[in-house]
């Protein structure tokens, strides 16, 4: 009797193991198929060409340079971001524009970081499978939208607390670099020497 029950138990365990393995195999196969299907649905970047992207970025930089003033251009070239002074409200914000990152708003007088304005300029025609503009064109689009219609851009963007996408430490570092860059620039431009004694943004 005991032998029969033991044998039955072993057979049951073996059967259950086979069923469980089969189920697991099907589930992982289904998962892989779902992944493949999702990948197929995603628009493929058919012919990514680093050379073409570099040339596009070079053209974008030239266009940006031709639109912004010399200080803004030097700032972008040397620091990798551009500051635009806001015009809204009594306590006017300034904005740091980074390529393909949120617009960072801060108060120049206190250095207080106000928040991140997340905004994108997706080109849905996707000429090469991607809707992403070259870095400098993204900065140019932000610069145009901010200088032409600050309120409209701010209302359209999704606002988030500081630190959501750009680390607060990085922003503070960038503001310190900007202040130092401005001091150096004031020192190297004799006609701007009188600015040296002024209070820096940070």
């Amino acid at each position, binding site marked *: 009797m005991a032998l029969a029950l033991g044998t039955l138990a072993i057979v049951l365990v073996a059967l259950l193991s086979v069923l469980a393995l089969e189920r697991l195999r099907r589930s992982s196969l289904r998962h892989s198929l779902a992944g493949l299907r999702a990948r197929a649905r995603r628009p493929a970047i058919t012919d990514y060409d680093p050379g*073409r992207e570099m*040339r596009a970025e070079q053209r974008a930089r030239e266009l940006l340079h031709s639109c912004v003033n010399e200080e803004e251009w030097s700032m972008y070239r040397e620091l990798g971001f551009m500051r635009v002074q806001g015009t809204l409200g009594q306590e006017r914000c300034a904005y740091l524009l980074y390529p393909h990152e949120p617009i960072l708003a801060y108060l120049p007088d206190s250095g207080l970081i106000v928040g991140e304005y997340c905004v994108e300029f997706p080109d*849905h025609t996707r000429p*090469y499978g991607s809707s992403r503009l070259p870095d400098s064109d993204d900065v140019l689009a932000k610069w145009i939208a901010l*200088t032409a219609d600050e309120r409209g851009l701010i209302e359209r963007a999704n606002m988030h607390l500081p630190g959501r996408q750009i680390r607060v430490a990085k922003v503070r570092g960038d503001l310190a670099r900007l202040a130092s860059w401005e001091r150096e620039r004031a020192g190297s431009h004799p006609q701007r020497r009188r600015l040296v004694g002024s209070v820096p943004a940070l």
Partner: protein
Amino acid sequence: MRLLRVKPGHGEVVLAEGDVTVPDQYAELLQAFRRELDAGMWAAVPTATDAGRRQAELVRSFEEVPVDAERVIFFPRAAGGR
């Protein structure tokens, strides 16, 4: 006047170029301008204030483009990002 459009993988692309005082060229510029707006692009004219501040002006029709504007830049509409 030149109509430029920024594009992924291209940078700027010249869509049309001409003199707005020449009727044929005006018509060509107008057609290209409307085509881009219909495609959902925003149009902007870079300008400078008397104080020397560089800025841009969004235009919603060809009539709003200053006659002496050298270029109009088209770029995709802003959308709230993540």
